[in-house]
Each structure stands twice: as structure tokens, then as C-alpha cells.
């Protein structure tokens, strides 16, 4: 265990930095520091163009194996890339669900045909993905999924019916990966399939959910006889649970590093504000800023410890704390930002309900402890799976 950075890593760092310096300019200059949490839907088309620019430079999917178009970058290099990307003010990534979740899942569980069909679109910044796990009555409990998939005997085609919710990016994405029940009457983790469903078809309706921020970061997605080819089923029709769990493993993996860099930018803005508006003199604010700083650094070391364990998406049991940790940290940062602003935090700029980045952070971060498994669910998982305590009885 050591913190030294080797010569190759240093070269890599300057390569990333200088590429970003040269390319995040001109038409893309306006994207700097945009598209972070609460600001996801700014400059969407421009940011898609930026994804393609990055792809052209070979800077998407750098952690993927070379045979799939990546650079086979090491964990250290991926950390470095994310650091430099954040330092340069790189905009919030639109391709991240494809790059860090769907891609690695396909690489691990997809057929050669599926890999050939979908990985290039992700890597080249042409095709974007969203996630269909949660359902209205099931919350984030995959075992309670009600969405059904039925296979036509002759064509082998699947028809999907049901509803997903809390689907970010559904309005801007091309595909959604959907966990659906392939065995009528099955319960719990059995009888589930993992489908890659095109969104641009008559059987799919996307309905944005207006949130407390006044904007719509999440959507409901309705499947009404939506069609999915049998070749777009990942794993067998009863392997959905395993595939979905592997994907969640990736969610707690390298993809967290990019998120942390956005958090760092937010914290930096809070610190700058405290310095400029005089609240840095308030000892209680000072304590909380120091706590936030320490908390974010620890988040990073948590990730690095977990990633040191293995690169196959199967993380150590310590990784179970990740969601609870970051969502609580981020929620606290939102509240700290408001308190640094003081009573002035109530005033909105312009007309309508236009939130500044830090005002948005405060409201938006309340979702963090809820979607993708509430903090209560996370604590259950930690207690049961990491600490071996008894499972919660079902009713």
C-alpha cells in the first residue's frame, strides 16, 4: 500500500490534461462545469456532441479492454482521468450509464453478437442508455418486480408490459435495460430476465416526473406491448437477477470516481462561497466544511480500497456501504451549502423557479437517499449481507 505515482501514470496525466485543454474549447467551452447533479438537462445536444468528440480522441470507455475498443486503462489511470476531467471542468457525462454500467455488463455477460451490436454505439458516443430497475409498487426491491415479458412462440420475440420509475435520462436515451419477469407467477429473484429495449418504438411511453426542484430528473417509463428481440436478452430468461446484481457491482465500482469529482467541484464552490461571503468566520460552518472535506476524501479512499480488491464487478463486502455513504454525504453537503448561503439562500435569480447550482443541490440531493435503494434498504443490505444478521421477514 502506497501513494506513490509512477512515471507512466504521470505521463498519462499530462496526456489527459493537454487533450482536455485543447478540446474543451471553442464550441465546447460553454460546457465547462455544466451538467452536474441537478443540472443534468442543460446543453444535452451539445454534450452529446462532446461525447463524440471525446470518443474520437479515444477518451470514452478507457477502462474497457482494448479488444472492445477501450484502452484497458488501470484503476489508477481511471482515477487520474476522472481527476483531470473534473479539474478541467468537463461537463456531466451523458454516456456514463452505457460506459460504466451497460458496457461492462455486456463485456462480462453478453454474447459476442450483443457485444458487436451495442458496444461500439456506447464507445463512439452515438447511443445512450438508461436503467429500468425500480417500479412504483416495488420500490427498489428487484425481487418484487412486476413488469412482465412474454415470448411469442413462433418469432421468439418478447413483449414487455409494465412500468418502471426513477429512470434518469429516459428522455435522451436510445435504449433502456429492463428487468422483467419471464416466468408468470414466479416470485422473488427467480424467473427474471434482463432485456435491452429500444425506447424509440410505439410500445414505450416516457413521462417525466416533476420534482421538488421544479425540473424532471427522473421519468416514468411505460411498456405497453413493447417489443424486444430474443437476441437482446442478456443471459438466459431466468438469469436476470445475476446480471442485474453484476451491474449493481459495477455501479459501486469505478463509475463512482467520476461522481466524486463532481462532488469535489460542488464542495469547492461551497468553500469559495464561504470565503467570499464571510461565513468562513463561523466556527460551526468551519467544522462542517472540514467534515465535508474529510468525508469526500474518505469516499475516495473507500473506493480505492474496494477497487483494489478486484476488477470484475464483484466487490468486497465493504463495498456495500458505498451508496449509504455517498448519499448521506451528498445530502449533508446540500444542507451545508444552504447554511453557508444563510437566509439569502431563499432568493432565486430571474423569474420562475430557477435554482442556482447550490440551491438545486440542496433539493436534488434529497433524492439521493431514496432512489436506487433507500438508506433504509441499504442498511438492511449491510446488516444482512456484510454483517450476517438475520434477514428481514417478508409479510
Amino acid at each position, binding site marked *: 500500500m502506497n501513494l506513490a505515482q509512477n512515471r507512466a501514470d504521470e505521463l498519462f496525466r499530462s496526456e489527459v490534461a493537454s487533450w482536455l485543454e485543447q478540446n474543451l474549447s471553442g464550441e465546447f467551452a460553454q460546457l465547462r462545469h455544466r451538467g452536474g447533479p441537478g443540472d443534468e438537462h442543460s446543453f444535452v445536444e451539445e454534450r452529446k456532441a462532446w461525447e463524440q468528440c471525446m470518443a474520437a480522441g479515444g477518451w470514452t470507455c478507457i477502462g474497457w479492454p482494448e479488444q472492445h475498443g477501450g484502452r484497458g486503462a488501470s484503476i489508477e489511470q481511471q482515477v487520474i482521468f476522472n481527476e483531470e476531467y473534473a479539474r478541467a471542468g468537463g461537463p456531466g457525462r451523458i454516456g456514463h450509464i452505457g460506459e460504466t454500467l451497460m458496457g461492462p455488463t455486456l463485456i462480462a455477460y453478453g454474447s459476442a453478437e450483443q457485444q458487436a451490436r451495442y458496444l461500439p454505439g456506447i464507445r463512439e458516443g452515438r447511443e445512450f442508455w438508461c436503467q429500468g430497475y425500480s417500479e412504483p409498487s416495488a420500490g427498489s426491491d428487484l425481487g418484487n418486480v412486476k413488469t412482465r415479458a412474454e415470448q411469442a412462440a413462433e418469432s421468439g420475440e418478447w413483449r414487455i408490459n409494465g412500468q418502471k420509475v*426513477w429512470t434518469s435520462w429516459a428522455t435522451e436515451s436510445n435504449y433502456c435495460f429492463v428487468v422483467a419477469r419471464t416466468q408468470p407467477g414466479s416470485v422473488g429473484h427467480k424467473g427474471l430476465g434482463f432485456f435491452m429495449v429500444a425506447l424509440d418504438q410505439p410500445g414505450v411511453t416516457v413521462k417525466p416526473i416533476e*420534482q421538488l426542484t421544479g425540473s424532471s430528473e427522473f421519468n416514468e417509463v411505460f411498456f405497453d406491448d413493447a417489443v424486444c428481440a430474443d437476441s437482446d436478452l442478456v443471459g438466459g430468461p431466468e438469469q436476470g437477477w445475476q446480471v442485474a446484481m453484476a451491474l449493481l457491482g459495477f455501479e459501486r465500482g469505478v463509475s463512482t470516481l467520476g461522481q466524486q469529482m463532481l462532488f469535489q467541484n460542488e464542495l469547492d464552490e461551497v468553500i469559495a462561497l464561504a470565503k467570499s461571503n464571510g461565513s468562513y468566520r463561523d466556527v460551526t460552518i468551519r467544522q462542517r466544511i472540514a467534515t465535508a472535506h474529510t468525508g469526500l476524501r474518505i469516499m475516495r479512499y473507500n473506493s480505492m480500497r474496494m477497487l483494489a480488491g478486484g476488477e470484475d464487478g464483484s466487490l468486497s463486502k465493504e463495498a456495500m456501504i458505498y451508496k449509504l455513504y455517498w448519499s448521506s454525504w451528498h445530502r449533508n453537503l446540500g444542507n451545508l451549502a444552504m447554511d453557508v448561503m444563510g437566509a*439569502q439562500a431563499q432568493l432565486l435569480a430571474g423569474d420562475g423557479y430557477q435554482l442556482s447550482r447550490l440551491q438545486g443541490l440542496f433539493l436534488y440531493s434529497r433524492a439521493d437517499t*431514496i432512489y436506487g435503494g433507500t438508506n433504509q434498504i441499504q442498511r438492511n443490505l449491510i446488516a444482512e449481507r456484510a454483517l450476517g444478521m438475520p434477514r428481514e421477514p417478508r*409479510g
Partner: protein
Amino acid sequence: MDFKFTDEQTMVFETAAAFLAEASDSAAVRSAMVAANGYQPGDWQRLCEEMYWQAILIPEAHDGLGLGFVEIAGILEKMGERLYCGPFIASAVVATSALAAAGSDQQQASCFPRLLAGQTAALAYLGRSDLWDSGAVTATLVADGDNWRLNGDYQLVAHAAGSDFLLLAAKRPNGELAIAIVETDSAGVTITGHPTMDQTRPLATVTAVDVTVTAGQLLNSGGCCAQLVDDLADIGAISLAADQVGGSQQSLTAAVDYTQERVQFGRTIASFQAIKHKAADMMLKVEAGRSALYYAACVAELWRQSSAAPGQLAEAAAMAKSYCSDAYYFVSGTAVQLFGGVGITAEYDIQLYFKRAKSTESYLGSGNYHRERLAEQLLGPASPADQEAL
């Protein structure tokens, strides 16, 4: 010493609950949120006519009800439960208290009938927003022949936009404070309403440029009003604490009701111990906040009767505002969490409580701000420099 409501008080509160359940339901609140000055003038008129609550603190001699702060606190609790949006605290509590405490006979005779008829007023004193007492006044009042000229900016004035007259605090050249009754439409007065994160509590900036003030417009015969501003800030803080207790109670009630309906993993989520324990912690804070509020309301009533001990109002306000601010933030935030996904949608009301918790937390001083005031009473000033200056 008695901590029980009288039968009359209980009746007033039951009537208030029933009225507000209808007059300030979700639709009414959402309509007020997007109204020009943050409330529907017709709704305010209706409240004034049907409930006559604007008259509570106006003396009977002036055709008011001559009731007191216990009644005010109880009604504000009910308003907090319903996210009531009208200018009740600004006009019927703070401005009315100022006029009752320091208005001349003539001023009272001219202002009270207007307020009784449904006109509204607001006190403006904040030249800066890191302090919430008379030390925050930066506007100036300088002599100009027989009259005075008032100049200054006032920030974060709740319910100023739409009000009929203002009470403007300003500093004389000798440092003393005065409060002037100024018509909203006077030359030199500009009121700019701002959109706010919590849309149920409108805030405005008030600017006064060379506003002419006559002797007859000055409260307290123009005498020093610093203590009055301090006291009114405390009265405002106690009023907000009442709103917070009501909002906390409703957040708890709504969350418990929701968890009794919502089924996950085959059980109502109310049956999960983690949910139950959160609810228990919420209730503890709601009830403790209510105790702090009722004590503070009693002290405010002593103050109204000029029989509070020195420092008693400040202490009571600091305890109530600090505890209830933190409690409302905790309780409403936890309620959002217990609602889960729907809690953060615009459609459900619980997020409105959460926003109101945050806006009332910082307004008139956060928990930390008021705890430092208490610490100064208990321990003296923190810094050695201040210590030596004593």
C-alpha cells in the same frame, strides 16, 4: 403557573383548524404560491371577515379582540399545519404588536381601523442578513427642516409586497433607532418582490430614497426603538416557531399515515422497526418543540402586558426558535424520506413542508444563531476582547 389551555382557547384552535383545513388546503396553497404577492388577496379578506384574527392583538378599545399571544401561537400552529400563505405574522402579529406597544393614540386610531378592515403592514429593519436584531439596521434618518429624510435598503422583508403601509426602522445620526410609519405608495419607496425557494413565504427588498417622514409618523414619539426592534424580532421568531411546530406535527402525521398505507416487501412500511423508530424520534421533537413554544408564547404574553423580566423574552425566543427550527428541518426531512420516491415529486405536498422548514430555519436566525445568544446569557461573550469590553 399553568400549562393548560382555557376552554375558550381550545375552542378558538378547533375553529382555526376547521377553517384552515378548507381555506388553506393544498389547492389554495398552490394557488397562493404562484399569486402575484405570494397570496390571494381575496383569501385574506375572507379570513379577516370570517375569523377576525387580524384583530387578536388589537386592543378592545380600538374594536380589536384584545386577546394575547397564547391565542396567536395556537392559531399559528394550525397555520403551519396547513402551510398558510397569507401575511398574518408580518401584519397581524409583528406590525400590530409594534403599533400596540409604541404607537401614539393618534397612530393607533388611524392604523388599527385599516388593519381591522383587512389592510396589511410589514416591519422592515434588516440592512444586512447575518444579524437579526436592531444591530442589523443600516437605513438612516436625518433631519430636514421640521421633517426627516429616510434612506436605506431593507432585505428579506416578508410580505412587504402587497402591503398597504410599512414600519421602517432607521438610525438617527446619534445612533438611536427610530421606526416610521410609511405608506407603501410614498414617493421614494420601492418594493421588489423576489421569487423564493419556499414559495409559501414571499420576501421582498424595500428601498427608501429620500422618503419624507413627519414627526407624526414616528413611533414612540421618535424615541429610541432599538429595544423595540429587538423585541419584535423575538416576537417574530416565536411566531415562526409556532409555524414550525404546526408544520412538524403535520409532517409527522402525514408520514405516519403514508407508511400505514404503503406496502413494500409484502408489509406496510409502518410495520418496519426502522420506520417506527424514526417516527418516534420525530414525535419526540414535535412534542419538545411544542413545549418550548408554549413557554415562549406565555413569555410573549407577559411581554405584551409589559410584565416580562429583563432578558426573559430573548431567552424564550432563542430557546423556541433554535429548537423548533432544527426540529422542523429534521422532522420534515425525515418525512420526505419516509414518503420515499413520491416524497420528492412536485405532486405531493410533503416537499412543501420541507422547503418551509428550511426557509423558516434561517429566517430570523438559525438554531446556531439563537444558541449563541443563549450561550452569551449563560457564559458571557466568547472572545476575550468582548470579555474585556464588559
